[in-house]
């Protein structure tokens, strides 16, 4: 009987859906697509690029990572740090209102960070704030943090994706009814279909946003995205699938905007698992992989070969190092030295549904063949990948989004106590640790640059894994869309955007 009632209700809702009608879209409506469903609209719990799209539209941080990758004021209009870099005081902008009409207070900041620190929340940003010893609201517009250790990059942490400031009295319903301070207010979320947002009339930046409404449609099929863009059903495709770029370029009614990022994919070799515990084996793998070819195969050329997560577009990039050209003969020789004259056979795990990483995996398989390494590619569902492969398997493909600073881009992976290192490839070299620790305390840009130059050389020499490229972030849009600039952090910044 129960089932019948449910079915009846579903029928009814289908009928009702077809009955209600008549709302006409506002003139300034931007229809944008993302390529996968969102798990949550609660920023603390977000993990995927599609979710960050929503986070950026609905919420603000204390600070923001701007288009030039520098940190700028956002909800905090200014901040001070003590000389020992352990006490940080943030002054909030006055009169900022949450979408529910309540004014933003320092207590909201404290509650937001406390929530991220709570293990039960399960926020990936928790490790970032482990450095916080204590925090308190000095007055409604001032919040102060005491750190356990000096940290010059603390303000940048508030530009991170999960550290969006949320109202302390509405945290339980954020996943489905997010309330923020951002340029757009949440209207509705139909999982698998769309998110509807409307203009926040009280947004604190005067005159912004320009759009009345944003509809984020969830369209996983790349052919459907491009088709919808050409027919005008969509105005903007966020993170345009690489294989679709030529089609969009060929259409005079469409345009493309792209920006280099430091988002990377990597060939991960677990340094504690045979045969990758031998640096010569890892070096051999790195030698055999032609990075230019891989960039072509995996990204259709829409990226740049690199040595480490430091992108070639960055001033710290080590230009003297050569990009590996692919030397299977040399790799074979190294393998023989390491005791594998006939190569070996190994399973390479790739997370299913990540197109660039799947292509990277297949490219690795082909490029290692002439070096005598037989690679069996095993595609794994993403949840299994997180649980059983990442940090556990010997050989797999992984990838990471841009981080706000060079320190946060490199340290966690290469320092022997880095938060990602121990769970990824378990690489440890005291010399690398010294370099990275030194860079954190560098007094000048030149000093930092010199240290990071050495970091890259060492990363290539030791090859804990191979980072073949950094990816370009590309958006496709209708020529009617104005004022859009792709963000190197892959945020969807629509504040200045307007549409004809």
């Amino acid at each position, binding site marked *: 009987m129960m089932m019948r009632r449910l079915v009846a209700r579903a029928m009814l809702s289908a009928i009702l859906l077809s009955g209600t009608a008549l709302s006409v879209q506002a003139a300034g409506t931007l229809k944008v697509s993302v390529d996968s469903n969102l798990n949550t609209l609660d920023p603390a719990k977000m993990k995927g690029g599609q979710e960050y799209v929503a986070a950026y539209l609905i919420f603000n941080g204390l600070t923001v990572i701007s288009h030039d990758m520098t940190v700028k004021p956002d909800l905090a209009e200014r901040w001070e740090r003590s000389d020992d870099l352990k006490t940080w005081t943030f002054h909030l902008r006055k009169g900022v209102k949450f979408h529910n009409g309540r004014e933003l207070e320092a207590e909201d900041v404290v509650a937001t960070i406390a929530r991220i620190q709570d293990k039960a929340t399960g926020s990936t940003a928790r490790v970032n704030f482990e450095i916080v010893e204590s925090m308190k609201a000095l007055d409604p517009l001032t919040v102060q943090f005491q750190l356990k250790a000096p940290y010059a990059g603390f303000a940048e942490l508030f530009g991170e994706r999960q550290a969006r400031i949320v109202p302390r009295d509405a945290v339980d319903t954020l996943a489905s009814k997010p309330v923020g301070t951002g340029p757009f207010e949440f209207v509705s979320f139909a999982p698998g279909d769309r998110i509807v947002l409307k203009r926040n009339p009280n947004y604190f930046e005067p005159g912004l946003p320009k759009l009345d409404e944003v509809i984020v449609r969830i369209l996983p*099929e*790349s*052919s459907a995205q*491009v*088709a919808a863009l050409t027919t005008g059903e969509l105005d903007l495709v966020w993170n345009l*699938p690489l*294989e*679709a770029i*030529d*089609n969009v370029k060929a259409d005079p009614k469409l345009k493309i905007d792209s920006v280099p990022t430091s988002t990377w994919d990597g060939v991960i070799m677990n340094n504690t698992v045979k045969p990758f515990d031998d640096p010569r084996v890892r070096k051999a793998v790195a030698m055999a992989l032609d990075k230019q*070819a891989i960039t*072509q*195969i995996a990204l259709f050329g829409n990226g740049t070969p690199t040595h480490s997560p430091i992108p070639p577009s960055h001033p710290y990039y080590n230009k003297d190092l050569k990009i590996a050209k692919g030397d299977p003969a040399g790799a074979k020789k190294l393998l023989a030295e390491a005791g594998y004259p006939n190569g070996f056979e190994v399973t390479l795990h790739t997370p*299913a*549904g990540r*197109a660039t990483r*799947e*292509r990277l995996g*297949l*490219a690795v*398989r*082909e490029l290692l063949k002439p070096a005598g390494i037989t690679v069996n*590619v*095993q*595609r*794994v*569902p993403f949840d*299994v990948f997180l649980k059983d492969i990442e940090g556990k398997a010997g050989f797999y493909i992984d990838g990471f989004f841009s981080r706000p600073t060079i320190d946060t881009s490199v340290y966690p992976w290469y320092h022997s106590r880095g938060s990602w290192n121990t769970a990824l490839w378990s690489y440890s070299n005291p010399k690398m640790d010294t370099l990275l620790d030194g860079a954190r305390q560098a007094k000048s840009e030149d000093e930092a640059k010199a240290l990071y130059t050495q970091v890259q050389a060492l990363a290539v020499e030791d090859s804990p894994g191979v980072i073949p490229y950094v990816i370009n972030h590309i958006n496709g849009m209708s020529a009617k869309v104005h004022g859009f600039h792709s963000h190197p952090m892959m945020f969807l910044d629509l504040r200045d955007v307007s549409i004809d």
Partner: protein
Amino acid sequence: MTDATPARQAPSRGLLARLPALPVSLVIGVLLLAPLAVAAVAGSWLAPYPYDEMNIMSRLQPPGADFWFGTDEFGRDVFSRTLVGTGSSLVMGVAATALSLLAGVPLGLVAGYKGGRAGEAIMRAMDVLMSFPPILLGILVLAVTPPAQWKAIVAIGIVYVPQVVRLTRAITLELMQEEFITAARLRGESAAYILFHEILPNIWPPLAVEASLRVVFAILLGASLSFIGMGAQPPSSDWGLMISEARPFVEQAPWIALCPGFALATAVIGINLLGDGLRSLLDPRNTGAH
């Protein structure tokens, strides 16, 4: 490739005897399937290129002299991949069908011959299995473990067990009314003897027809599972997987999807015709729709 199933073996004596009167559909079916059988056995040997060889300079090439059916996004030869994929795609259906027969026939025999509680229990269990939509049952089975092709075969096998059990049971029940079974019982033959020597040989013809139809469904279901990522895994050139991977490129390079699609269509039409032919051969009265 149907050689692997009982579909061809059981009625072969009858086939020879009626050779002059072979149904047209059977002949066409065999003609369609013959090249596929060759491809399944010798595909990787006949293919002009290794199925997994990448040639990045010639990715997404349209069909031409070098690549008869073009290349995919890695510059792999679509024709070679389709050819090599024949084995994977057809074996999936055939092996799954064999599996469902292997599990279903004994269960059906027991349910039909012994009846009673055991029979009742078997049939009720089958009812539960049948109350899942087929693809959902496949997904449910496959979601339990990381995907692999052999697991998809097992899943499809399980999906079709109930149909085999039901059919076997029905035929067994019918046979039990026959005089020669009664005679065997009166002779005091053991249950095992009756099952294996009297009943089993007589249930093969209808089962063979059933199996030939089942193979089609199994191939299509296998392709569907590969398509949603739960069957064959890359870099395999299983047809369902090939079509799935071709989706993002469908506009620029439709040949990547079309070539395995046509191969799949040929296989399905061929087996359907073969099944129709078999049926009219084994049961000339029944030539209508199924």
